[in-house]
């Protein structure tokens, strides 16, 4: 294994660690910063904020994205909001409370020190975003408005209509473009990273493919930063954008970076159910809807009446009944699993009986239709557009969908992977959210990593490298990786099989959803472990990629991505099988309380699992990082 699994958490009380660490880290003086080159892959919230901030500091940055513009990154579609411990609402919030809620929400599977730092940085993010012109919602007095969001008992979520992600990304993107104008950041669009180059145990550069010309190129630097997003699309159907993929992280994994907790995936409870086989993705509706919507199904599986004609007594408000304290606002995993339970019992609604109702009748009575329109108008419109049903007249139908992935490349406290010189930010890393992410916390994490953590910690790595040059791109190591990438591209075009990439991706997705989805058991996971490699072999023998490797070829792009999903899926199943406990988004049916709640096994599994790649046909090695909780007492989550 390259490097070590030492998280390098600084000593001292949790509240002082980051402050002390910032003081203890080595600095690169302003004049020397321009002597360092840094590659940032990905220009979503995490990557754009990192590249902009590094550029401002004076580093020479090369930022890449496969999109035609940074503004298109998947971050753009986040709707609900971003958390910050500002306590502007005077309702008792604090850095400690946000920290506490995040560790608890993550079901005690995250690293305390990282989470505390995240909560500290949250307040600065809001300041930064507002200064950039991010138009957060405001009160009539001109000050910022907040709301409470999925599972939180304080109002700490900042939001921008239903487009918080777009507005924050436009902020980070504008900061990035300012550095492009200033000449500190060299931006390469429509450029996909297809491999990492490691020399002497350090990350020294990457190999890319130009999506318009097919040209394969090498790029070297003193450090490589991956901010390439999550892997939810391994399930084919998810709320992620179509192009989201794991390739950058997976290729780094194959070069030695450990992949941590791949089985921690999150299901979002409020998505629009699939309508047919050709569904290309699922659409999420902000879970802020759960603040006013009541979730129910008919008690009778053979119910045929319209929702409004079903009397109260014949409705099953399953969340309100089971969890009187939190009701419809229980965390995502709890809400999702309960929806699955009732649908599995045959109580589902809609033409395919694959959803549950989200009903606004009471809120409409109480606050009036205009108030509903003001709060959720755009979500209601979106729902109507997609389903052809008017949610002002009848309840919405919702069902859980894959939404976010907590697992990712393992990183230490400095956000550096075990491969020195390789940093990982945002959804691509495994830090901060443990086994379950709280609503409105991914935007917070991506921006904390990019604006306020990496710009400090990368200096600590770079300082001792002063005076060294990046490895020349004609070095043997670059040439070898470059040749491998070219060979892989040729491979796809030479198969000339019979089935499309999408066909294989859909099949893979079904295996994953059925066996590594909302609920898992050992038989299903074993099944996945036998089916995935079989399908993968078929994929390599029978996929049909038409066209050539010069010029735009989307099928060719997808082939490489789906190929990496196959390998990841296997690791997910293995990770889920080994983790014989339920925690957060990972629900093992064998490990539940008498009431059917997730049951953790802290004696045996209070650790992160970080997997080491050993080859396509050999088993990976499972390393563990023990998790110690000094500030938050481990309790069985209870939302009753």
């Amino acid at each position, binding site marked *: 294994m390259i490097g070590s699994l030492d998280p390098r958490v600084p000593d001292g009380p949790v509240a002082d660690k980051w402050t002390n660490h910032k003081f203890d880290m080595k600095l690169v003086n302003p004049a020397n910063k321009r002597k360092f080159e840094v590659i940032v892959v990905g220009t979503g919230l995490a990557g754009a904020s990192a590249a*902009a*901030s590094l550029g401002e500091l004076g580093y020479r940055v090369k930022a890449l994205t496969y999109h*035609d*513009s940074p*503004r*298109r990154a*998947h971050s*753009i*579609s986040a709707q609900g909001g971003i958390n910050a411990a500002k306590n502007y609402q005077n309702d008792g919030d604090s850095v400690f409370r946000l920290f506490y809620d995040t560790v608890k929400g993550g079901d005690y599977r995250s690293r305390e020190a990282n989470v505390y730092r995240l909560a500290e940085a949250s307040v*600065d993010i*809001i*300041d*930064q975003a*507002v*200064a*950039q*012109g991010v*138009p*957060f*919602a*405001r*009160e*009539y007095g*001109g000050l910022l408005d907040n709301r409470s969001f999925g599972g939180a008992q304080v109002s700490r979520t900042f939001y*921008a209509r239903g487009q918080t*992600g*777009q*507005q924050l990304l436009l902020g980070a993107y*504008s*900061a990035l*473009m*300012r550095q492009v*104008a200033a000449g500190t950041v060299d931006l390469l*669009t429509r450029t996909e990273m297809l491999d990492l180059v490691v020399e002497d145990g350090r990350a020294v550069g990457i190999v890319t493919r130009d999506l*318009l010309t097919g040209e394969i190129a090498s790029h070297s630097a003193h450090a490589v930063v991956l901010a390439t997003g999550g892997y939810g699309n391994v399930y084919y159907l998810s709320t992620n*954008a*179509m192009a989201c993929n794991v390739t950058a992280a997976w290729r780094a994994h194959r070069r030695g970076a450990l992949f941590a907790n791949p089985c921690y995936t999150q299901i979002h409870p409020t998505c629009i159910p699939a*309508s*047919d086989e*050709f*569904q*290309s993705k699922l*659409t999420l509706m902000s879970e802020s809807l759960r603040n006013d919507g009541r979730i129910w199904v008919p008690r009778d599986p053979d119910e045929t009446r319209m929702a409004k004609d079903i009397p109260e007594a014949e409705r099953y408000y399953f969340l309100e009944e089971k969890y009187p304290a939190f009701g419809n606002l229980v965390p995502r995993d709890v809400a999702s699993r309960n929806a699955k339970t009732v649908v599995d019992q045959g109580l589902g609604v809609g*033409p395919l009986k694959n959803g549950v109702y989200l009903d606004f009748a009471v809120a409409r009575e109480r606050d009036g239709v205009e108030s509903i329109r003001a709060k959720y108008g755009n979500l209601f419109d*979106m729902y109507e*557009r*997609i*389903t*052809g049903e008017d949610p002002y007249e009848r309840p919405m139908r919702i069902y859980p969908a894959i939404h976010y992935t907590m697992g990712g490349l393992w990183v230490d406290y400095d956000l550096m992977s075990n491969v020195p010189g390789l940093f990982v930010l945002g959804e691509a890393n495994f830090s901060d959210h443990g086994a379950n992410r709280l609503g409105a916390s991914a935007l917070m994490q991506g921006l904390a990593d990019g*604006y*306020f953590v990496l*710009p400090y910690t990368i200096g600590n790595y770079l300082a001792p490298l002063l005076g060294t040059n990046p490895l020349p791109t004609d070095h043997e190591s670059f040439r070898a990786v470059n040749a491998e990438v070219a060979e892989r591209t040729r491979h796809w075009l030479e198969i000339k099989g019979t089935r*499309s990439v*999408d*066909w294989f991706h859909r099949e893979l997705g079904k295996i994953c959803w059925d066996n590594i989805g909302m609920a898992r058991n050992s038989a299903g996971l074993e099944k996945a472990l036998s089916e995935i490699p079989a399908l993968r072999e078929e994929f390599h023998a029978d996929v049909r990629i*038409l066209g050539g490797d010069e*010029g*735009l070829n*989307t*099928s060719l792009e997808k082939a490489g991505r789906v190929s990496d999903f196959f390998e990841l899926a296997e690791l997910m199943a293995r990770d889920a099988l080994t983790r014989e406990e339920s925690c957060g988004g990972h629900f093992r049916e064998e490990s539940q309380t008498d009431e059917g709640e997730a049951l953790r096994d802290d004696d045996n599994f209070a650790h992160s699992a970080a997997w080491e790649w050993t080859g396509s046909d050999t088993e990976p090695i499972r390393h563990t990082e023990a998790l110690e909780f000094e500030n938050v007492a481990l309790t069985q989550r209870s939302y009753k």
Partner: protein
Amino acid sequence: MNTINLTLEVWRQSGPAADGGFVTYEANDVAEDMSFLEMLDLVNEQLIATGEEPIEFESDCREGICGTCGVMINGKAHGPEKATATCQLHMRKFDDGDHIVVEPWRATSFPIIKDLAVDRSPLDDIVTAGGFIGVNTGSAPDANLIPVPKETADAAFDAAACIGCGACVAACPNSAAQLFTSAKIQHLNLLPQGQAERWKRTEAMVETMEQFFGSCTNHGECTEACPKEIPLDFIAYTNRDYVKSKIKNRKLAGQS
């Protein structure tokens, strides 16, 4: 499940320099619940099955926010529905037997890459010219130290809702990018945070726009096509700001 049958006429062009032309495809058994892009996915599956290269078109979020998608549908940017990006258009808006012409954005400043995919990078160049507020990371004051009247914040937001899809340019007879540029400028010019660089920003962005795009003659086709219904008012504000910027920028440089 209701299905319809359609005849598509799709622009195929193998590369930027190649000649393009329309090719006719039958799209049968299209479910009404499908989106327009899912319909194209279906056609592509069939093309791949018969050994013909799939139609290249761009999309990503498929929920109307990333601005990646966009084609001309029967001559209309993003198709017939108002306030709708191509990815949000559903097949229930079409009738059985319809004939649909599908083309890429047509504008000299958006060269065709392949089939329905075009290069919209000049939009980024306009942003690079000044579409930002110059605040380095870490130097921001507490967010509530800058109160912004709700009305101002809302107006800025209306501009900030632009998704950078380029439909306004594609719809404009002159291929002007006034709506996009004005949305970008006014989002920042309306806010107190954006005042320091207001005149510099306006001049630089407008002049960069003029390097790439045609001039606006107030047709209003842009707003009609815009999936976010960005109002024309922003163009008027920008024209006003641009005229002022010419004077202000000189003053700021001490040459009044």
